[in-house]
């Protein structure tokens, strides 16, 4: 809580910029970014039980991609729309944190 340890920064609340210190929590906050539909991320931390697709393969909307086990539930992750699998970043048996980029897609057009 020592004031002289940190530097005052400009901090805009509305149009006006105030000189102030930032809290650690504020500095460490995640900035929001628009999620890409081409990135399949884990919505919950868990374990990859099975993977049904291969890199380069074109997969139809609704087809199963993988099984993500979390909190004793086997969650089937499905293809959101028809596309090509460009990259698979996980393998069977590994644990993934929340928001882990598991599979990358690319457009087939």
């Amino acid at each position: 809580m020592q004031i002289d340890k940190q530097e005052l920064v400009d901090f805009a609340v509305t149009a006006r910029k105030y000189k102030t210190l930032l809290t650690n929590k504020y500095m460490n906050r995640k900035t929001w970014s628009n999620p890409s539909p081409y990135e399949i991320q884990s919505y919950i931390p868990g374990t990859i039980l099975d993977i049904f697709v291969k890199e380069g393969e074109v997969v139809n909307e609704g087809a199963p991609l993988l099984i993500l086990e979390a909190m004793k539930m086997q969650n089937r992750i499905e293809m959101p729309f028809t596309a090509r699998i460009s990259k698979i970043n996980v393998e069977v048996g590994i644990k993934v944190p929340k928001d882990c980029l598991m599979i990358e897609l690319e457009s087939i057009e």
Partner: protein
Amino acid sequence: MTLKKNILALRQKKAIVEKGGGDKAIEKQVAMGKMTARERILTLLDEKSFHEYDLFVEHEERNFGMEGKELAGDGVITGTGSINGNPICIYAQDFTVMGGSLGLKHARKITKIMDHALKMKVPCIGINDSGGARIQEGIGALAGYGEIFYRNTMASGVIPQISVILGPCAGGAVYSPALTDFVFVVENISKMFITGPNVIETVLGEKISQEDLGGARVHAEITGNAHFYALSELECLEQIKELISLIPHSNQQKAQKVEPKEPKFHKNIENIIPADPKQPYDVRDIINALVDDSKFLEVHELWAANIVIGFGRMNGETIGFVANQPMYLAGVLDCDASDKAARFIRFCDAFNIPIVTLEDMPGYLPGVDQEHAGVIRHGAKVLYAYSEATVPKITVILRKAYGGGYIAMNSRHLGADFMLAWPGAEIAVMGPEGAANIIFRKEIMEAEDEDAMRQQKVQEYIEKFANPYVAASKGYIDAVIEPSETRGLLLHALELSQNKDDYRPAKKHGVPPF
């Protein structure tokens, strides 16, 4: 002769149980840098004031090798005593007895002393140092926790409840502290979490230490579960003594009044605040210049530092302060600051402590993270808490009071009893720059020199609206005052509100946006 023999036998019996888990276990406790449960109670309470209850209570579990196992006091010490002459009920879990694990009888000792505190209308202090539920007792341990939580809730708002975390406090056990009014933690000693690092690693693959997951600093700064943070057990016990002397024994009383003292601070109070509304200062300097003896006990010092809450005395009487802190995040209200202020206001209201609000805030914190974290729902708690409170409510607007923030920070519209403003106060719907950009958008866009026109219009807005006189002309502010008059007027307002009576419609209870 027989009586004398009986007395000796009693002394012997007591001496054995008072040893807790025995020398070896005590050695281990000390090696961890911790005091024993009994030492903690004796250090915290006034000398010779502690009277122990239920020393000879024994568990009744017969399964899993528990039959015949003797556990001193079933792992918890309970009793009554006083702190600086204030009567209290207390319990302390004894980690040297089977890791302070909670079985049914252990829990029943706790609920008995809680019932006692509630009946006698005295504060209840719980010192937590326990490995958790005694697994051998199964559902009995769960029943025990549940019965404690139920009493925490029944006692809430009737007697002050204090939790002191001096060891592990994990799983279901964390919910008793969470239900109480004030939680104290100590660096390197306190650990609180629902699921520990081992479970998190097995289930989720996330590696984290106990300290990083739920150590004292984490709860004092990030989660806000802890209200007071200390570097040692002794410092922690001193903080509890200070708090107990500032709060009443129950909701039927007022806090103990002490001899009034003038603030130690002698500088001109108006020099603390920079004239430029964009420059920060430490609002605690203002509080220290206003309270008796310049003594202020800050609550939640590390968490949501953009708002300051705590207790000080004025004219010898305990006052709760809520103040925007321009030193951090310009003093905005965000989710955490709203939760922090709202719960404090409700504590003050429940326990007859007048609230003084010092306002200097630019509004609510903008940002996707804030909106998505529910700043609407959290921010509403502040409005609810202020509106609901019937204790004397006084606001001093030091500098900025914009928009929703102006309404939220105990405005006249939410039922403030006294609204005072310093002459430099800017009470408006938003900052002049933002307001001018909207109101004079057309003029600014059509001007040959946009910037010059914008500057002119901002200046126009400042002169016309960024002052306390518009609000004062409508009676929303009772008086525009000189800073040096602040303490005197606060003392007068508090004196005048001694017998304040304020009615609320009859209801079972409200439904605040928890």
